């Protein structure tokens, strides 16, 4: 393992900020999985993550993509906490694609799994600490005093009545050998971490200056739209491009593996050109896909034992002897991510280079895909990660669909090209949250608690057919069963079985904010509510009795319930849910009314135990965001297929929550002091079951098909 002292010879870099601490990026050192606590980890090369300019500006390079979740602020907070710099003099850039920026736990450069903040807590603090020590050492040498007589504060090194700005020390500091070890501050001494901190990307995002992938422009660049198969897996048989080429502004029409690309001077010409393309498609097997038929197949499968995901005791015997049983079937549709920024990717291919500008969550995979298509080496492919106008998992695609396609278009067209997807393209482009069915039989013991729990889950595997397939264990893709197989309710049920069926279809599927928990949390939390009702018990007390060995579930539940307070106003009904995923525990209490068959959510009180909290303002924003995202799916989200065609196309038939439907959301943080967990996703799973449980309280109806509709 490399140590900081083994860094290759440093060199100065001139940048717009002047002279900087910027060493040659250390060569690929492989990637280390997060090691067990206490194990020695090599220190990160600070040059890859930090520059200090002679103008005193501190530039932090992000190994993760900013997609709204706030890494643009939280990662610099970590650096600043140790560096003791001036918070007002921080600049942020996204890092290029390089092995040194690999995720500390996943081993590839990507943003996902709600992990960016906690997985970087050590690395970015170490970067700040290393740089601070080098600056202090430089000042001590300049003043001929011991380093122990110097301290760093607000962008200066101080000793007695002397002081020098970081910028004035940068050149001398970078000539010094980085420390072999650094001691990070105790949490009690934190001045920045743990404090609510406003976003650093706000100024450029309120002026329109922030650059998203779709905003990329360069001399000679064309814009392309691709006509893709109207059904998944379809292929072009023949096409005629004369009419498209006759459209003013259209410069080329080229065939690529995913369809036919119309290349033009601007979006509008490309769109008009695409509208008049004549293509004869071979739909293939995908042409017969039909949601109603798929439901029939899925529910039939749900009647049989699937691959074992979790099991204990003898579930059949225990079910047979149970006096009270609750049976239920659940249906969850495909869901589109529908980020506000439609997919896009700009590519410029040179003789020995390929530059890619896009908002991606998966730099390593995109780089490899582009290298393969262009015949270049991965290091010759430069990824310029822009801001993402929402990610939610769609821009972390192991199939690299929107990037690979754009590289194909640029290669075929022979000019720099930005491929832009229309909203309709984006909505119908697949990579959906898988459609899923669950079937449960639960028998209650004499104490009313679940004694036997049989659950069959049916849903396409996300990992299958991707480089992540190696993570499928004994036929079970964990992303299909997470949240169920590891549920504390099952752990409290002596006899249980969770089975998984993973049918295949032509519809490409992908992780969608909180992944498997999008459906499993709904099943577990509405089932528990139904079991409480069957046992004649209060739903909150019933949960508490089962969560005795899960103190963090309990802590979140108790805080949310306490903050929600007395019963809701007349006409409103209350539902609760609590769920653990991505290292955090979230409980939500929803106050809901049902009028003329319409569900309205008035207030949501959320409590999150995300362990040690880095930016409470960011946590609150993420939980609010997760509630809205989950509520859009709960009330409206549904992608359906008929004769192979996606029936939805835009926000009029795939609605998302609007301002006038926004409930009051209150977020409370459990001070557990535990290890930091994720925050971007864990707020999503509880909202739909909390609302469904409130609908039961209001109407006596158990809604088990999403989106929630009162028939």
């Amino acid at each position, binding site marked *: 393992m490399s140590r900081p002292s083994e860094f290759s010879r440093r060199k100065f870099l001139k940048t717009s900020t002047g002279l900087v601490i910027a060493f040659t990026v250390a060569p690929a050192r492989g990637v280390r999985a997060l090691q067990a606590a206490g194990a020695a980890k090599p220190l990160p090369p600070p040059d890859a993550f930090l520059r200090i300019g002679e103008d005193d500006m501190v530039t932090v390079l992000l190994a993760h993509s*900013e*997609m*709204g*979740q*706030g890494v643009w602020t939280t990662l610099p907070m970590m650096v600043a906490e140790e560096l003791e710099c001036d918070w007002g003099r921080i600049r942020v850039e996204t890092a290029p694609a390089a092995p040194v920026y690999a995720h500390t736990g996943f081993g590839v450069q990507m943003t996902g799994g709600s992990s960016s903040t906690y997985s970087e807590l050590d690395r970015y603090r170490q970067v700040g600490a290393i740089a601070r020590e080098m600056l202090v050492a430089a000042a001590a040498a300049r003043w001929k005093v011991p380093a122990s007589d110097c301290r760093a504060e607000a962008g200066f090194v101080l000793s007695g009545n002397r002081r020098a700005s970081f910028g004035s020390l940068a050149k001398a500091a970078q000539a010094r050998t980085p420390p072999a070890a650094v001691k990070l501050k105790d949490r009690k001494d934190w001045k920045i971490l743990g404090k609510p901190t*406003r*976003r650093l*990307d*706000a*100024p450029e*995002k*309120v*002026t*329109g*200056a*922030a650059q*998203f992938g*779709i*905003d990329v*422009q360069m001399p000679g660049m064309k*814009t392309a739209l691709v006509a893709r198969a109207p059904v998944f897996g379809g292929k072009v048989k023949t096409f005629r491009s004369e009419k498209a080429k006759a459209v*003013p502004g259209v410069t080329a029409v080229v065939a690529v593996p995913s369809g036919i690309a119309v290349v033009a*001077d*601007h*979006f*509008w010409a490309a769109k008009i050109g695409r509208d008049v393309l004549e293509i004869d498609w071979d739909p293939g097997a995908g042409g017969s896909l039909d949601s109603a038929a798929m439901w029939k197949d899925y529910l039939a499968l749900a009647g049989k034992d699937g691959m074992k995901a979790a099991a204990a005791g003898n579930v059949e015997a225990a079910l047979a002897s149970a006096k009270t049983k609750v049976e239920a079937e659940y249906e969850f549709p495909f869901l589109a991510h*529908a*980020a*506000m*920024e*439609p997919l896009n990717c700009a590519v410029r291919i040179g003789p020995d280079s390929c530059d890619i500008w896009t908002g991606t969550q998966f730099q390593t995979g995109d780089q490899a895909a582009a290298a393969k298509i262009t015949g270049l080496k991965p290091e010759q492919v430069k990824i310029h990660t822009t*801001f*993402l*106008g*929402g*990610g*939610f998992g769609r821009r972390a695609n192991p199939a690299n669909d929107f990037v690979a396609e754009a590289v194909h278009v640029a290669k075929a067209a022979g000019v720099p090209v930005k491929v*832009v997807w*229309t*909203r309709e393209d984006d909505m119908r482009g697949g990579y959906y949250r898988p459609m899923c069915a669950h079937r449960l039989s639960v028998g209650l013991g004499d104490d009313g608690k679940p004694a036997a729990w049989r659950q069959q889950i049916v849903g396409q595997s996300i990992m299958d057919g991707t480089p992540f397939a190696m993570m499928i264990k004994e036929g079970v893709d964990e992303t299909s069963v997470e949240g169920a197989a590891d549920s504390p309710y099952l752990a409290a049920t002596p006899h249980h079985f969770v089975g998984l069926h993973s049918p295949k279809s032509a519809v490409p599927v992908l992780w969608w904010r909180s992944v498997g928990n999008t459906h499993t949390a709904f099943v577990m939390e509405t089932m528990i509510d139904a079991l409480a009702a069957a046992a004649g018990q209060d739903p909150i007390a019933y949960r508490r009795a089962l969560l005795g060995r899960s103190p963090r579930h309990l802590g979140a539940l108790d805080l949310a319930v306490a903050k929600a307070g007395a019963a809701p106003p007349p006409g409103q009904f209350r539902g609760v849910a609590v769920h653990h995923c991505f290292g955090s525990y979230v409980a939500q209490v929803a106050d809901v009314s049902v009028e003329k068959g319409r569900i309205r959510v008035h207030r949501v009180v959320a409590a999150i135990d995300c362990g040690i909290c880095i930016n409470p*303002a960011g946590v609150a*924003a993420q939980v*609010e*965001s*997760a*509630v*809205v*995202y989950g509520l859009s799916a709960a009330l409206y989200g549904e992608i359906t297929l008929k004769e192979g065609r996606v029936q939805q196309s*835009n*926000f*009029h038939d795939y609605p*998302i*929550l*609007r*301002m*006038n*439907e*926004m409930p*009051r*959301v209150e977020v409370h943080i459990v001070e557990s002091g535990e290890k930091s967990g994720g925050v971007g996703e864990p707020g999503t799973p509880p909202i739909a079951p909390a609302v469904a449980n409130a609908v039961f309280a209001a109407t006596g109806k158990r809604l088990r098909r999403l989106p929630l509709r009162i028939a």
Partner: protein
Amino acid sequence: MKLNVNGKTRNVEAPPDMPLLWVLRDLLGLTGTKYGCGMAQCGACTVHVDGEARRSCVLPVSEVAGHAVTTIEGLGAAGLHPVQRAWIQADVVQCGYCQPGQIMAAAALIRIVPKPTDADIDAALSASLCRCGTYQRIREAVHIAAGLTTAGGKA
């Protein structure tokens, strides 16, 4: 044709039915105005035409000739507009993609209704979608902006 965009006269060569959105973005390089849906469903493309909020994705460029178009880049005549300042104060943004449209819609609202109620905000801003779900802070920011505006800042 001649367009008046952010107080400047710009010459563009565009088919008359080309939506203003693409003229702004692809011909004039003003990419702060965003494409979200192309059918006036999401509000990401909101600009001002003679001070009024309009959906530029469905507005043929020929219709704005002779009218004053203001985009997010031109909203703050000198420094940030009070709405933009309020947005920073309330820490509204997340991914940020929809925010230029939200801000333009909010600025048009408080020009007409200097002290908007929550109902006014719902009416004016429900046409602007945010997938990150920043609505609660948008509401707060509009109220802050109304205060900044009436306290002496000029919208």
